[in-house]
């Protein structure tokens, strides 16, 4: 555990990507199995111990530290595991040597809700502050130390000089501590066989169309095909051996949340598409999809009621075909895959699958006009895909671009601020803002309409933090109420009617577009202006 704790600590303080890769690669080469496998799983968010939750740690601390002192500490530190590691009282008696990673994992796996508190405490007693931090991060399954799963996989590839695409491919059929994966990469054993399991293949992603790419697109346009960017969630469907999985963008298995979709693919294939809910809201030539708001009713549910299935029936609008009946189409060009997809879709249940159309546009200017319509039709924007692009993992420059519709803008007044977490810890970086419920000069009040915590630069954050501290009128625990003098220009993708909010509206994807320190608060927008933008 000390070696792993040291790795975690070094990763926290190492800025350069290469430095991080080096640290992880060294660790993976020098640490024996199964410790390195468990560590790798922790870094890639692959560990889950159902008996140990954030609340387990909180309760553990509450037994030893005054609840208010704990809450104030947590608020300042901005991270539960770190707070606990610093607050943990040193044991009175010698607790024994620190556990290995494998020993800690075995202990964590064996815990039940009833025993977790005492057993985690016993482990914590055997570690120093850095070890406690690493253990708690590992136990709660959220490292959040600036290491993406992708980075860890690149480091794995680097450590053993194997191809990172191979690592990605074999990864999803394997389970921690990845004995087969290490045997293959480190000792030259045969590669894990993945043909019989419904594997997730990492998505091909797009760059935003802006700056130099936008300028170059004018001339390059004939080499690209345009498609709608539907406002749902990107999914991958995999059918192998009579089994179907629906994967989200991050590779999470969401088959159980959308059983009607998972149940209607019976041909061995891997498909890429947008999961949507039937409705009349999203336009385009196909029509037939509801707003994202409707889809949200279905997201994150482990059990789906019949009523849900009837009210919000899901379907997938297909973008791409990766594998068809054991034939890997990914090396083919987009154009060839598109032809295969068009031939494939008629074999599918039309209630659950349709084809995302290609937009006919002769030039970028023409496409720009079509994109303008996206708002009225509640579509997120358009995609541009290079006609000769193979299907490759991640964001490869120049192949795919996303061109989202321009955001909506509204001027709001800062009302409350809260400290951020992670790298924003201690900064007042989460802002709640409001619009006037009528004429402010006639005594109308501000009603909160949204909350945003990005859109500003680091320097602006420092300025905002200072503004909040100097303009606080009330404190409610971690929340500060400000004097309602600062105007934000807030950008957002859409706004929906909401019964849960006093203002009656809920914004989608709000962010601070500009700080309008020059604008008097009473000139900020009124709620009616925001309500007028609802397209539900």
């Amino acid at each position: 555990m000390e070696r792993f704790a040291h790795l975690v600590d070094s990763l926290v303080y190492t800025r350069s990507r290469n430095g991080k890769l080096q640290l992880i690669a060294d660790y993976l080469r020098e640490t024996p199995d199964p410790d390195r496998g468990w560590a790798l799983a922790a870094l890639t968010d692959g560990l889950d111990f159902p008996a140990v939750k954030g609340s387990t740690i909180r309760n553990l601390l509450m037994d030893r530290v005054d609840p208010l002192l704990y809450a104030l500490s947590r608020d300042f530190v901005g991270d539960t595991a770190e707070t606990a590691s610093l607050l943990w009282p040193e044991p009175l008696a010698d607790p024994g040597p620190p556990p290995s990673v494998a020993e800690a994992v075995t202990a964590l796996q064996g815990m039940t809700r009833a025993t977790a508190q005492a057993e985690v405490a016993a482990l914590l007693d055997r570690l120093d502050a850095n070890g406690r931090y690493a253990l708690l991060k590992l136990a709660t399954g959220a490292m959040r130390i600036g290491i993406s799963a992708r980075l860890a996989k690149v480091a794995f590839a680097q450590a053993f000089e194997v191809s990172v695409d191979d690592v990605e491919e074999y990864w999803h059929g394997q389970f921690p501590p990845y004995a087969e994966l290490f045997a293959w990469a480190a000792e030259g054993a045969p590669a894990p066989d993945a043909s019989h399991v419904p594997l997730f293949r990492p998505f091909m992603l797009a760059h935003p169309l802006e700056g130099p790419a936008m300028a170059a697109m004018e001339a390059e346009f004939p080499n690209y095909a345009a498609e709608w960017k539907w406002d749902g969630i990107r999914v991958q469907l995999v059918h192998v051996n009579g089994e179907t999985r629906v994967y989200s963008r991050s590779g999470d298995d969401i088959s159980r949340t959308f059983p009607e979709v998972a149940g209607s693919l019976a041909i061995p294939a891997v498909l890429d598409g947008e999961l949507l809910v039937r409705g009349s809201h999203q336009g385009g030539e196909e029509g037939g999809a509801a707003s994202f708001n409707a889809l949200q009713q279905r997201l994150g549910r482990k059990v789906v009621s019949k009523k849900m299935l009837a009210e919000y029936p899901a379907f997938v609008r297909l973008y791409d075909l990766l594998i068809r009946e054991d034939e890997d189409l990914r090396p083919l060009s987009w154009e060839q895959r598109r032809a295969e997809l068009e031939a494939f879709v008629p074999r599918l249940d039309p209630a659950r699958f349709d084809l995302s159309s290609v937009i006919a546009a002769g030039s970028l200017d023409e496409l720009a006009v079509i994109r303008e319509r996206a708002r009225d039709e509640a579509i997120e924007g358009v995609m541009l895909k290079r006609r000769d692009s193979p299907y490759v993992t991640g964001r490869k420059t120049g192949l795919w671009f996303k061109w989202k519709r321009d955001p909506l803008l509204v001027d709001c007044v800062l009302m409350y601020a809260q400290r951020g977490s992670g790298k924003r810890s201690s900064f007042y970086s989460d802002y709640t803002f409001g619009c006037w419920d009528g004429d402010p000069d006639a005594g109308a009040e501000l009603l909160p309409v949204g909350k945003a915590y990005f859109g500003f630069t680091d320097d602006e954050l420092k300025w905002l933090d200072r503004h909040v501290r100097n303009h606080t009128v009330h404190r409610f625990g971690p929340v500060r109420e400000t004097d309602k003098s600062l105007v934000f220009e807030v950008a957002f993708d859409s706004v929906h009617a909401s019964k849960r909010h006093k203002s009656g509206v809920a914004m989608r994807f709000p962010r601070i577009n500009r700080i309008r320190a020059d604008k008097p608060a009473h000139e900020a927008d009124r709620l009616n202006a925001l309500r007028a933008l609802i397209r539900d």
Partner: protein
Amino acid sequence: MSAPFAWIRPEPHGIHVVPADTWIDPARPVDSALVTHGHADHARGGHGRTIATPATLAIMKLRYLTDAGSTPVEYGETIRLPGGVDATFVPAGHVLGSAQILLEHAGERVVVTGDYKRRPDPTCPPFECTPCDIFITEATFGLPVFRHPPIEEEIAKLLKARADNPERCVLVGAYALGKAQRVIAELRGAGYREPIYLHGALERMCRLYEELGVDLGELRLVAGMPKGALAGGIVLCPPSALNDRWSRRLPDPITAMASGWMRVRQRARQKMVELPLVISDHADWDELTRTIEEVDPGCTWITHGREDALLRWCQLHQRKARALALVGYEDEDD
């Protein structure tokens, strides 16, 4: 003045000693000021009369280029202020010249700690516990997560990073007054005899420390040194220069920062620090609470810092306490 302690009033811009019409560490210019120590947020310029220890006055003169109105008072010496108030300066152990101020009036005793620490510091005399009725304490590190490790461990980390990277240099961000000189003195105490290199902004204060009798060994300015000469060296700079263009002249520096805030990982990350050194000139949580127990005042007033938590601790330990809301102290600096 009839009510007890009505003669001492916390105002937003400082603590007002009413009968003497004198302010302690006021945040804006006043006719008469008592100053605990030389940090800029406590020792502002422009007062009609400034009463402080000789070292603090020398530091203020260095910064404000004038010593008009200076009234020096040695540690342990008492000065009689108008309105029948006696003020005594007691070592606070924070930086050179730092003092707690004991105020006595009508048989009542109030101690204002200013900033203080309890750990030994080779650059200034140690904190002395002074019995009093009201103890006005700082609370910069007033959260139980703050437990500063022994400074020897942190200095050893610094020396190890240097030894492990002979082709690089270690660049330590340290506040110009107090922290920089303490880090240098502790390095000397650990047997480090090489020249220590300074950013120009640290030079005058180090020289002043030397004039006031603190031995810092051989110091050299970075300016004018060839890049290669600094490989394997230790360089000190103000925190603001850590990620500044200035540091590009150094050979692949390991960015270190000497501050109590380095205890919290995300703070170190925000400052883009690779080598956090938990070295503080303030009392940590255990020191703050132990000091309240040792001083054992009738009431504790808590200022600048994390007042809420220390107030809570006082309540849990059946001690009378209140939090003051003073403005203008840079609670993030250490």
